[in-house]
């Protein structure tokens, strides 16, 4: 049997490791079935949490494990759960963010398609930790296959008593709703996601109030990424000390990195946080080197919203702190590789088109600014750049940075700023000569 998506993973290596765990069964075609999942130790953590732990013990365990959000912002998961006002008598909600739309990112999809119960089990444990009895998965609408697989997994879970009423005879009830989105990147931003889930346009909300205090239907709500949640059962099963021993001191655990672009072996690979980025790109187990053995030009380490690194900066750990020291971010963990035959202006034109298209339009700097940027950058790429344009772009970027309601504005700007800083000559060449210094090969073979 073959998988729906042919994407490459390192499941074989993970299966041999005592430390890696998320991808252990993703090459087993039966793993999406509940019986196989349970035979592989599934739902043990759910039973353990619900029958032998108190909600605050679960929160403490996850907090002590040092798990940080895998959706992009890297906020400590256990601490976030603690923000739910304990005195509130309103219903509480857990929402799993499965909107996965940050360019370069394709990891949550593998979990959902091949190991959907892993996500559901993590959601159940998280729900118990925050006192939630109705949890949601918000899956981007384009992921039709994922939606079907997750729906089926939910049905199996109900049938075998992992969800529903009086779970494990504890009196605890938990329901699940699988909700599909409508195709909008901004709905991955948690407050826009909540608006979308309520049936409104997917526009971001002004914070405060934060969702933990006033989220879905104005009730306390926790939004967590698929991978963050799928990590939780492992912490409950093996303990926070074990989890903390993985990765680096401040970036604990392991993480799935989506590797794409000009590498020989693109794929989704689970490694411990802190794994060397250069090795990740070149090692035969992962990237296997640059396509066509060309020279490396640059790398985006954490999804399209994170700043570029130059080749001299990639001897660095894939963790939250190390990437900051070289001026970028871990983001969603999507490593995009560019070889020497890539025009930087062309690259940025693709990215700014995306952010302009996806801006929800609520705040002026982002709505107008991304439009100006797209027009100027497209003009430069098409040989119509004028002297002073690069400086104008920089000034528009400065006027967006930090002045918007949600982080999409910053996300649009950061790759541009770093592309100008790192390759200013190339921008200048474009303006002076009306053409690319290096022409990107866009041939399809």
């Amino acid at each position, binding site marked *: 049997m073959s998988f729906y998506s042919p994407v490459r993973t390192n499941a074989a290596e993970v299966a041999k490791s005592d430390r890696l765990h998320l991808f252990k069964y993703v090459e087993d075609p039966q793993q999406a079935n509940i019986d196989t999942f349970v035979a592989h130790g599934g739902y043990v953590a759910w039973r353990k949490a619900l029958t032998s732990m108190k909600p605050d013990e679960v929160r403490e365990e996850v907090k002590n494990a040092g798990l940080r959000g895998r959706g992009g912002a890297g906020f400590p998961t256990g601490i976030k759960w603690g923000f739910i006002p304990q005195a509130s008598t309103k219903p509480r909600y857990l929402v799993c963010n499965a909107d996965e739309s940050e360019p370069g990112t*394709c990891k949550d999809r593998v979990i959902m398609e091949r190991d959907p119960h892993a996500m559901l089990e993590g959601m159940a444990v998280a729900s118990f930790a925050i006192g939630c009895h109705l949890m949601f998965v918000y899956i981007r609408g384009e992921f039709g296959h994922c939606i079907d697989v997750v729906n089926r997994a939910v049905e199996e879970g109900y049938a075998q008593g992992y969800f529903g009423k009086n779970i494990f005879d504890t009196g605890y009830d938990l329901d699940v709703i699988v909700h599909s989105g409508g195709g909008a990147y901004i709905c991955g931003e948690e407050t826009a996601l909540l608006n979308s889930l309520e049936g409104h346009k997917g526009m971001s909300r002004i914070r405060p109030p934060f969702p933990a205090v006033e989220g879905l239907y104005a009730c306390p709500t926790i939004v967590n990424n698929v991978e963050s949640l799928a990590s939780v059962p492992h912490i409950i099963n093996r303990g926070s000390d074990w989890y903390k021993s993985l990765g680096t001191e401040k970036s604990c655990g392991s993480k799935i990195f989506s590797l794409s672009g000009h590498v020989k072996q693109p794929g989704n690979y689970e490694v411990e946080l802190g794994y060397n980025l250069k090795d990740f790109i070149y090692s035969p187990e992962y990237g296997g080197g640059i396509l066509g053995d060309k020279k490396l030009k640059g790398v985006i380490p954490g999804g399209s919203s994170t700043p570029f690194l130059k080749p001299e900066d990639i001897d660095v750990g894939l963790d939250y702190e190390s990437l900051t020291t070289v001026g970028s971010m871990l983001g969603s963990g999507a490593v995009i590789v560019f070889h020497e035959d890539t025009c930087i202006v062309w690259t940025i034109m693709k990215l700014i088109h995306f952010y302009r298209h996806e801006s929800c339009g609520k705040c002026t700097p982002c709505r107008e600014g991304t439009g100006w940027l797209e027009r100027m950058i497209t003009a430069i790429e098409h040989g119509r750049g004028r002297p002073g344009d690069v400086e104008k772009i920089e000034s528009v970027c400065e006027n967006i940075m930090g002045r918007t309601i949600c982080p999409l504005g910053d996300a649009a700007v950061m790759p541009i700023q770093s592309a100008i800083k790192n390759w200013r000559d190339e921008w200048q060449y474009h303006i002076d000569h009306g053409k690319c210094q290096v022409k990107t090969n866009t041939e399809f073979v």
Partner: protein
Amino acid sequence: MMLSEQSIARMKEVVTKYPSRKSAVLPALTIAYRQIGHLDDDIYNEISEAIEIPAVEVAEAATFYTMFPKQPRGKYLIQVCHNISCALLGADGLITYLEQKLGIVKGETTPDNLFTLISVECLGSCATAPMMQINNDYYENLTRESVDRILKELTEQAQAEDEA
């Protein structure tokens, strides 16, 4: 009536799942879109009746999202990802190749109403680039050869359905 009884029944069932009726707007739009292939004001009205949410609110949500187009499309909607990871591996060339094969330009539908070609943002399939989505399905790691095969299969499938 455009909506089938089945679609209406599913919408009415979905509504009951949520703590708030309005949350059923997106699921209802999805059900309608999957059945009909596009949405318009009349369909908004029908959805509005089925889930008992004002039609303006249905329309407001529908027009915000890219997945619910107002124009009818061909039997097969081809959506090529033109975002960065795919672009690095030939997405622009893939679009040109499809344009040539289908004899249309991006945004158009073939005269036999079989294929509509558009390009879209990242579809979460970046490590299997270049890729395209046709209706509900993903086609990944594309080459000229696989594109030829896929188009041929879909054309044959449509012919077989016509004859049946």
